[in-house]
């Protein structure tokens, strides 16, 4: 018996892969289920069914087919992870800022401490870093300027 070699044919169905043993086709020629196309989100139900359902493994005639299909799905996952990384980069660009409910005196101490620490900063940076309302930060900066503790410029 010669060594096994892998052949692929796309005549019937989508990409039938089978083992050839000594030139003759293997007795079991089960076509593999085509991989889902599209983004990882579209393919997620497929993988959930594959990993959680447990019925997918019984579709393979032997372990070799399972390994071939696993390699194919691994390539598919790598390609889709690239798309998923781009989507995550888009999501990471959107930062949600929630303002805290702080009274004026508390906010004034925090703003003064912030500018004491960083020295020079924009009001918007202070607002986002301290999670305070922008209008409140501007009002506090005006008051600090009147007190002679801050210089405001454009």
């Amino acid at each position: 018996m010669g060594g096994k070699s892998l052949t692929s044919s796309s005549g019937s169905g989508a990409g039938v892969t089978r083992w050839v043993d000594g030139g003759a086709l293997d007795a079991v020629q089960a076509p593999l289920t085509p991989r889902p196309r599209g983004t990882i989100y579209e393919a997620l139900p497929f993988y959930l069914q594959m990993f959680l359902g447990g019925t997918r493994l019984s579709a393979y005639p032997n372990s070799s087919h399972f390994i071939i299909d696993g390699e194919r799905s691994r390539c598919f996952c790598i390609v889709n992870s690239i798309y998923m990384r781009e989507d995550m980069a888009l999501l990471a660009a959107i930062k949600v800022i929630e303002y805290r409910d702080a009274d004026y005196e508390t906010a004034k101490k925090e703003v003064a401490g912030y500018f004491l620490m960083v020295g020079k900063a924009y009001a918007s940076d202070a607002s986002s870093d301290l999670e305070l309302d922008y209008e409140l930060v501007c009002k506090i900066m005006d008051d600090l300027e009147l007190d002679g503790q801050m210089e405001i410029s454009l």
Partner: protein
Amino acid sequence: MKGSEVGDSNHGHRIITEARKVSDPVVIVKSGRHKAQRIVLTENALAIIDRKGRWCGQ
């Protein structure tokens, strides 16, 4: 609130803008060498010229 008429403009080093929808940036050619980016804000758009503070207290 100042400058809510059509055609009013702001110019500053740093402008804080808020809106319901923000478009993707588009590169516009200002001159042969200089390029800039433009975004369009729609629905309740607001622009504030940011101020820089420098601590000079105790």
